[in-house]
């Protein structure tokens, strides 16, 4: 079950935010959003989500830098983070995974794929994967 799980979506495109929020909310997720890169790490600490969906090309800070900071902090080192980006080359995937991304998904995506990925990450939370 995913009811009651909290996801933080860090994304700066309003209509992508609205669509993802709708897709996940319909599945029982509590969706918080944040649109700035500069204070995204603070937002993660403050909102304490169960998992994060992180855009890479944010207006004021790269998602990769945010991910690196999250992995450097004991409190968020194991937090599941899905990197969601329009930059889908192999080198981008490798960069994200090497920084500790739990999942890597390329835009545009199928809604069902996004949902399944989030569910899988939640299942990993429950099983300790």
């Amino acid at each position: 079950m995913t009811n009651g799980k909290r996801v933080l979506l860090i994304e700066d495109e309003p209509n992508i935010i609205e669509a993802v929020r709708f897709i996940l909310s319909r599945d029982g997720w509590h969706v918080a959003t944040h649109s700035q890169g500069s204070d995204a790490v603070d937002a993660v600490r403050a909102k304490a989500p169960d998992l994060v969906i992180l855009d890479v090309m944010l207006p004021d800070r790269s998602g990769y830098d945010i991910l690196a900071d999250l992995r450097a902090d004991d409190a968020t080192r194991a937090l599941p983070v899905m990197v969601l980006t329009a930059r889908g080359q192999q080198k981008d995937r490798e960069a994200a995974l090497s920084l500790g991304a739990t999942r890597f998904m390329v835009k545009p995506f199928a809604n069902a794929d996004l949902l399944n990925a989030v569910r899988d990450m939640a299942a990993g939370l429950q099983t300790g994967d």
Partner: protein
Amino acid sequence: MRGIGGEGARIRALRLQKGLAQAGLARDAGISPSYLNLIEHGRRPIGGKLLGELARALDSDPAVLSQGAEAAQIETLRRAAAASGTGSGPAPELDRIEALGAGFPGWSALIQRQADRIATLERAVASLGERLSHDPLLSASVHDVLSAVTAIRSTSAILVEDPALGAEWQARFHRNLFEDSRRLADSARALARQLEAGADADRGATTPLDEMEAWLQARAFHVAELENAAASDDTVIGLAADLPSGPGRTLLTAHLQQYAADARSLPLDALARQVARHGADPFALAAAMGVEPAPVMRRLAAAPADVAGAEIGLVRCDGAGALTLRRGLRGFGLPRFGSGCALWPLYEALWSRRPLMRRLQQADAARPVRAFAVSETRFPGGPNAPGIVTATMLLVPHGSSADAAAPALPVGQTCRICARTSCPARTEPSILPDAPL
């Protein structure tokens, strides 16, 4: 066309291409100029030992002189087969390649044109990838397009897949679709403008380095305007203005500034006198002229053929191994993208910091080449800042018979298109058919 006239015409064409005088070639081949003249005009037959001597003096192959275009065509077919990769279906019958060339000249020409076209398209794809990586404006435009497409795809899927969606949500998502479709139209137009603006620069030459090399190649790497000691920065800037892109002009400006400085310290007439005594050996020339080998290598590569005395290739790399200048030499292929073969002395010079001379032979080359390599270190940020290292490698044809006694080091162009087995330096699999992993 075979026969007496064919070889002679090919010898003459090759001699003129190399800028050699009839007297000089005749002397090198051990015959009189008048006899060479008769050969070139098809009035004397040629074969056997004399054909070999003329081929050696022209740094060519007897088969090329005797068979000409047919041999070249077969070589082209062989390269097309090698570059085709390991796809499904039967492999090309390389043992029957000569029958293909002779029996089906039209099909052979078609294969050749298609191989050329594939190579052109691959360069364009690589160029676009490079532009996306290094052009922030283009990258931002692509990101805008993909963001709009992402929003449209997700939103439209919600509308289609959820028939029970409430009217309020439907209205919101329809409005979002309208906004995103307008945004997509705008960003697609912007992207098209950027691609069209770059199209002219991409035609033929595809990267700033390609642009610069194409400009230099058109002049055989010799820039007569800068041979005058009075050449100014304005001359350099005026020459570099030929290139279509800003990055290309920046590269060419730096190259021409170094060219002008080298020309002032090593004038062409002084170089020519020493080459006449020492040949195209940059180490011997540097010792004789009391200068470092690297500028001598650059001057040899920039000198007209009658001064250098031989066909010259030049490769330069930075401290990270990226090739920053490529002048090819027949019989020694250089990669169009990425780094070269790790066995080249160019790379050894980066760490050994001593002058190196090696005889090298690539797998598909008829003969080895001589390679001279050195590195230079500059400290533009002062003694406490990191040094900037570059290495330069001069390539000259196989050289004298004395050289031929020493074994040549087997090398390649770059791993991806190298078929050498058991190479200790291989870093990635080859795409050539039946090549090692």
